[in-house]
């Protein structure tokens, strides 16, 4: 039984425009039997936070190609990508690299 996990979410590089322009979100994920992993977090974000155009953020199971994910300031590929299990007070940052200049 995992206690409710609180996560700090940050959106950058233009991704924040899909979330009402708010860059930092402090969310509390409801408790469930297994620990939350990133895949479930994405589904949760899509259902609860994403205001418009879901296809610009999520593609299938994972994020759209071109969006970087950092977990506690480290590349999520080093942490296991979608399989990483979230812990309380983790920082997850989504940076879009699609509209660079």
């Amino acid at each position: 039984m995992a206690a409710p996990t609180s996560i700090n979410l940050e959106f950058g590089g233009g991704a924040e425009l899909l979330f009402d322009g708010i860059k930092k979100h402090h969310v509390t994920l409801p408790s469930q039997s297994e620990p939350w992993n990133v895949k479930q977090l994405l589904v949760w974000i899509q259902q609860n936070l994403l205001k418009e155009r879901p296809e610009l953020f999520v593609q299938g199971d994972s994020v759209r190609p071109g969006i970087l994910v950092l977990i506690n300031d480290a590349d999520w590929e080093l942490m296991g990508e979608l399989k990483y299990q979230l812990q309380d007070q983790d920082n997850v940052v989504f940076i879009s690299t699609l509209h660079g200049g």
Partner: protein
Amino acid sequence: MELLLNKTRLLFFQLSGGHCDSRQDNTVDALNKNLRKPQHHFALANKEAMRSKHQAAQSISKLCVKCKVHPPAVLLRVGDPYCRSCFNDYFIHKFRAMLGKNRVIFPGEKVLLAVSGGPSSCSMLHQVQEGLSVNAHKKLRFTPGIVFIDEGALTGRSLEDRNKTNSELKALFESTGLPFYIIPLEHVLELPISVLIQPHVRSTESATSYKVAVAEFDQNNQSVAAQLPGQEQDPAAVSEVHTLKLQQLMASVKTHTARDELLCTLRQHLLLHTARSEGYSKLMLGDSCTRLAMKLLSNISLGRGAQAALDTGFSDSRYGDVIAVRPMRDYSAKEIAYYNHLFSVPSVFIPGLDFKTSDKDSIQRLTEGFVIKLQSEFPSTVSTIYRTSEKLQTACEAPTALNDSPRCVLCLCALDTAAENASAFQATMISEQLSQKKSPQNDCLPTHKGSTDKTQSSSADCSGLCHGGSCCSNRLEPMELKTLLCYSCQLTIKDMSSLEHMPNYIISETQRRLRRSQMKAEISNFLLD
């Protein structure tokens, strides 16, 4: 569409001539075989690619590959984890190496940094600042300035939105202590004709003179000239009339592709004019490796293959006196985004013309989607395209003669429309002519001979009435403009419903050149050549 993507993929792999990672060779072969099979087989090949990537990922060590001491923070390239401080060193070193390897920027030179507010250009600004700071190892030796072009008029942003972003950027620029210019895109309507005319340049300096110049600079212990920080003039008030005119110009373009191209062209003209008028001899653009890879592929689709070396190379010498350089061309978008986040580089995101448009709206967006998607499955895509583009070189010599090869009025590159016998261009023109309906009065081959006849007859009646200046009240026929454009700019013009909203300087320069060539044709018998 999928079939086209597959074919392009095959062509791309063939072109790169086996630069792909050895790990992916079997997947490349699998791809090649699968081209003839229907789509679901291609999905199988995808799964193989993902599996091989995951296998690679699992074998990554738990320590930074450079110092082997700290835990890794970033995964660069395919399997190289770097810790935070090694990544910092790597990033800074790459910038210096790029500038030092291509000895184009001489000590003490004035360099204009084109900052769009996006991550790459802000990162470039940050690197330049770091390089100029007193405690830097081997200080950078040039004098920078910053320019920002406010394109809010085209994306339909309100004036207060634009002012808000402008003041954010102003605060950012002021904190750097460098002179900066915030220019609204509307100013492009007031550019002088001189923007399109190439000045006579002295011969380019050689490598040995670079070393001499550096030695002299160091010997005299010159510090970079102290500059007056802050803006030279107040941010110009944007007149509503101009905004409207600009929006009308963009509205007269029918396709998103052509709109993108036209915007790029106008932006380049404005940057060039700013650099020239404020005395800067170099222009630094912040295009990253990813963006240049997309640009290379979409340029080829747009018919700009002849100018590919100038558009994506490190230095772009098409303007003559101002040389554009791209120091960020070795950085992938991922590296820049990581660096900006880890080291708190400030940037301001401004939605551009293509934000929230569909993936299939324009050639540029299609290419972007293609490259990014391919990159996510084959992480060496972008670097392979980059390495291929590095081998491109310009075919024509640096301009030495005064009346050298004619230049395109829009993109200012040498014209590539000499339709020689059995050339691809001639074949295109013939098929275009044949596929049009039979209306002999308005379609003629856009060759030089054909159009000068037409302009002779049209300007014969007005040459008697007006003496230079804007005759025929700025009316410009597309056929007339076409002769002065390179192939891809011709295609851009073709997508415009009317040319009446083109900025005055383009129309005036076109008319001037047409009159000149007509005059030259008239007196050609008397010229000693």
